[in-house]
């Protein structure tokens, strides 16, 4: 009898792929909202449109991608099965129904709908966190990536709970406390650093050595990165909640930059030792994301100093530029690069692994177009730089152009990701190995 191939530990393709196909819709939505921005966009970060765009990017694009990636990676990489695959599908439905309504309610500043859609989103994220927590608990070995995911999932819960409390206090019959700019910043940094940055850094520690075949070097600062980032985030959130004096904010910015800065050094050192010298989409995304991290740190520090780039009444420019560099540049580049690798592997695993040895089967680079993926990554970088420039210069026309580019990136990403699900043929030449195999 021919032994069967075990695919039990890899989640079903039909469960994971919808996350990767839904995520670009968030990018398209955010791009359209930016492309139709109005002249007051640079006045304050907490304008309804700016808040809607931020949540469109964070919940729609980035969080949906991360959910798909961690549902795939938690069982395969961390060794623990998900609690329930049915729950994953239920969670996705909640998420996809609530997310656009939530963004719309923010745009219209309809607090009643914000509360309703926010409650469903909260439920969706609780289901996600519970499923991932169970997979992480069941894993049999501690790794950097597992440690990062545990901490980032806790920060996700905190971000959602604080955001949900804000939705509560916004209801006219409640008004428990005021939402000051410091408190907006506290919620934003819980999500951006605590949830997104820690997740992206942890995934980077797992995927960069794996995809670039790095086995001659180990991360130097991994646990320090996690500890300093987690402590700096928690401390910053507490301090920001009290609307600290201007002199305190640059100190918080420096604290928040320590962990990601060490992580970038680690990634650069790892990449220097890669065996796969010819970089692929994941390697390019790694370089680009590290560059954008550097830009985001510089802009974040500028925003914390509170000095407008030009005199006038548009103090949000630095903050908006900082958000664009971080969300679209650092996190976005990372997710674009890894999405092609993760989904193509999943397609190979479920469709072609059972055929290995019986017929020639495609490899992952047959499943996605390296050229198209690189183009999406590059245009995302260009769009991000256009938006950063637009924000710093206060140019509405440039802002709208950047939004249009980002919407186009979302559409191209959706098309290229969807194309991976089409039947593929092996393109590689027949094996002509000249290696000698030791026999006895």
């Amino acid at each position, binding site marked *: 009898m*021919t*032994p069967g191939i075990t695919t039990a530990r890899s989640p079903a393709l039909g469960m994971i792929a919808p996350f990767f196909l839904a995520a670009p819709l968030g990018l398209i939505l955010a791009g359209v909202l930016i492309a139709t921005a109005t002249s007051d966009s640079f006045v304050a970060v907490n304008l309804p449109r700016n808040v809607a765009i931020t949540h469109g990017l964070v919940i729609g694009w980035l969080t949906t991608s991360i959910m798909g990636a961690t549902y795939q990676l938690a069982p395969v990489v961390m060794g623990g099965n998900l609690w329930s695959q049915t729950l994953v599908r239920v969670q996705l439905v909640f998420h996809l129904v609530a997310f656009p309504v939530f963004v719309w309610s923010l745009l219209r500043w309809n607090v009643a709908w914000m509360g309703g859609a926010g409650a469903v989103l909260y439920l969706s994220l609780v289901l996600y966190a519970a499923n991932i927590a169970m997979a992480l608990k069941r894993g049999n070995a501690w*790794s950097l990536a597992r440690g990062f995911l545990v901490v980032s999932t806790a920060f996700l819960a905190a971000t959602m709970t604080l955001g949900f409390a804000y939705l509560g206090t916004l209801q006219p019959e409640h008004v428990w406390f005021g939402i000051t700019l410091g408190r907006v910043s506290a919620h934003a940094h819980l999500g951006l650093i605590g949830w997104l940055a820690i997740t992206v850094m942890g995934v980077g520690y797992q995927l960069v050595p794996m995809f670039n075949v790095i086995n001659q070097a180990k991360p130097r600062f991994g646990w320090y990165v996690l500890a300093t980032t987690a402590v700096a985030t928690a401390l910053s959130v507490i301090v920001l909640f009290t609307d600290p004096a201007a002199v305190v904010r640059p100190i918080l910015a420096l604290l928040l930059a320590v962990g990601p800065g060490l992580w970038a050094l680690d990634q650069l050192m790892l990449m220097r030792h890669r065996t796969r010298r010819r970089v692929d989409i994941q390697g390019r995304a790694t370089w680009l994301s590290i560059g954008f991290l550097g830009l985001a740190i510089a802009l974040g520090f500028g925003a914390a100093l509170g000095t407008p780039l030009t005199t006038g009444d548009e103090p949000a420019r630095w903050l908006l530029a900082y958000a664009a560099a971080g969300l679209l540049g650092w996190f976005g580049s990372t997710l674009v690069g890894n999405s092609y690798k993760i989904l193509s592997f999943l397609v190979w695993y479920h469709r072609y692994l059972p055929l290995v040895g*019986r017929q020639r089967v495609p490899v992952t680079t047959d499943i996605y177009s390296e050229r198209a993926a690189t183009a999406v990554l590059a245009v995302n970088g260009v769009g991000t730089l256009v938006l950063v420039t637009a924000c710093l210069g206060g140019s509405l026309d440039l802002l709208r152009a950047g939004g249009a580019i980002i919407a186009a990136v979302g559409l191209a990403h959706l098309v290229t990701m969807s194309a991976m699900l089409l039947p593929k043929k092996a393109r590689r030449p027949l094996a002509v*190995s000249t290696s000698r195999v030791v*026999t006895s």
Partner: protein
Amino acid sequence: MNASDVADVLRDVYDPELGLDLVSLGLIYGIDVDEPDIGIRMTLTSTGCPMAGAMLDAARDAVAYQFPGTQVRVITEFEPPWDIDMADDRARDWLGEPPRVRGAG
């Protein structure tokens, strides 16, 4: 059937990520044939490779399919750890590594 025949089958089992076969990559440390038993000693490019189970199963399944009636065992070995020097010139070229210096020493 001998070890060379088994190696030929493994030359068509590809690491899907790297686009290279197990033999070219130098992942096969040894093949022991004592019909109906076939033993394959192989390694992985990294100890934390999440594809480990898939690659081991693929190697075993491919050989068992080509040689019906055999009992195929795949044993993983991490000593010596895999190194790019174990890969052949084609694999090195594919990965962007410079070719070996011939005749050195």
